[in-house]
């Protein structure tokens, strides 16, 4: 299939007009707070894994809750696309979250499967900048890389429950900046009392430090049994949310809640009718 045909099929899947082909394969979420360097790390990984591997990137940015529009700007960081010897083996698609909650819309699962079925060796999903409890990516990706950086709080952050517990690999980016070593130490110390702890590595997307190691590791991440139940939980929650969003009355009920003072209990009752 040519790229144009593939691009149009992905749109059709995104718009609910086409069923994605089911396919198993490596789907890796790159997640973490806004501005921590996710796009630049994806660029570094693509530089190292292509053209030997065919890699697709699904880069998610948020949809405006006010206008329904979106500004999708993750491509700007992808300098690898300037390299003609590599660009042919890379497919990048920008995705808006549209009506879904969370850092990845559920439709991304179908898009990723469709790309795998069309001979891409792996799919990298770059999530919306995500916070501590943003675990929706576990429903879609089968490996999770959490990116952290310096200057984002003290050691207690590393002890808190949430996204970090689902990580298959933790990357501390911006290692060229002050404070990165302390973040690595805090995380490592915290993980010493965790069974089946994920590795922690340090990278600098600017200097290139750690990017070879990251690219090698990403190809060989093990499936950690501890997160299986969490994945199932997220899948179930996401499926349930989809049923809600796809309800034909959803938008009109939203209008009536915001404009006519329809109360929550009544709105729920009407949605379940």
């Amino acid at each position, binding site marked *: 299939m040519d*790229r*144009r045909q593939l*691009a*149009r099929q*992905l*749109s059709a899947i995104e718009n609910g007009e086409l069923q994605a082909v089911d396919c198993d394969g490596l789907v890796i979420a790159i997640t973490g707070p806004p501005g921590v360097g996710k796009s630049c790390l994806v660029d570094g990984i693509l530089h190292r894994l292509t053209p030997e591997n065919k890699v697709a990137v699904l880069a998610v940015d948020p*949809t*405006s809750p*006010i*206008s*329904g*529009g*979106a*500004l*999708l*700007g993750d*491509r*700007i960081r992808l300098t690898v*696309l*300037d390299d003609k010897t590599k*660009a042919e083996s890379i*497919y*990048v*698609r*920008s995705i*808006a979250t549209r009506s879904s909650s969370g850092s990845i819309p559920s439709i991304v699962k179908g898009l990723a499967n469709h790309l795998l079925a069309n001979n891409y060796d792996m799919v990298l999903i770059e999530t919306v900048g995500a916070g501590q409890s943003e675990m929706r990516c576990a429903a879609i990706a089968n490996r999770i890389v959490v990116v952290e950086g310096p200057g984002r709080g003290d050691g207690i952050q590393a002890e808190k429950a949430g996204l970090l517990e689902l990580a298959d690999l933790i990357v501390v980016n911006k290692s060229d900046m002050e404070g990165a070593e302390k973040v690595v130490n805090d995380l490592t110390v915290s993980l010493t009392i965790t069974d089946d702890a994920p590795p922690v590595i340090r990278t600098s997307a600017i200097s290139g430090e750690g990017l070879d190691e990251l690219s090698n590791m990403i190809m060989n991440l093990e499936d950690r049994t501890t997160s299986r139940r969490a994945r199932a939980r997220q899948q179930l929650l996401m499926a349930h949310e989809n049923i809600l969003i796809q309800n034909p009355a959803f938008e009109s009920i939203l209008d009536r809640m915001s404009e006519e003072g329809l109360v929550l209990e009544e709105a729920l009752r009407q949605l379940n009718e």
Partner: protein
Amino acid sequence: MGVRQRIVIAKPGLDGHDRGAKVVARALRDGGHEVIYTGLRRTPSQIVRTIMDEDARFVGLSSLSGAHSHLFPKICELLRDAGLDDVVVFGGGIIPESDRAPLYDAGVRAIFGPGTPSSEILEFVNHASTRDCGVGSKDDWHWGV
């Protein structure tokens, strides 16, 4: 508000100023569209590849360097070569009045200069999305006639 479109906003050529492109991208976002911004200094072939991969229906080209008479028609030509005949091309930046007719002939459907209200660009997108005016169309219509 019209139907949501996927729109690439691109900066072809060598100028390094993209405030205008960002303002247009923002206005289209606030108008309910999904806008993919390419960043600075893209080549025509990179822009066409982005439009193809992103399955965008519109592309807005911003140029302030004076190279628009070369770059805009080149992009129109590459779009037709790639079979992307239904993509609607519009442009903006510093484009002298006397340069505009050849750009319309090349397939550009609208040119927005400094001072254009953002509502006019949204009107153009909404209108153009209802007619067959892609870069490969025989229609010789352009915005503002």
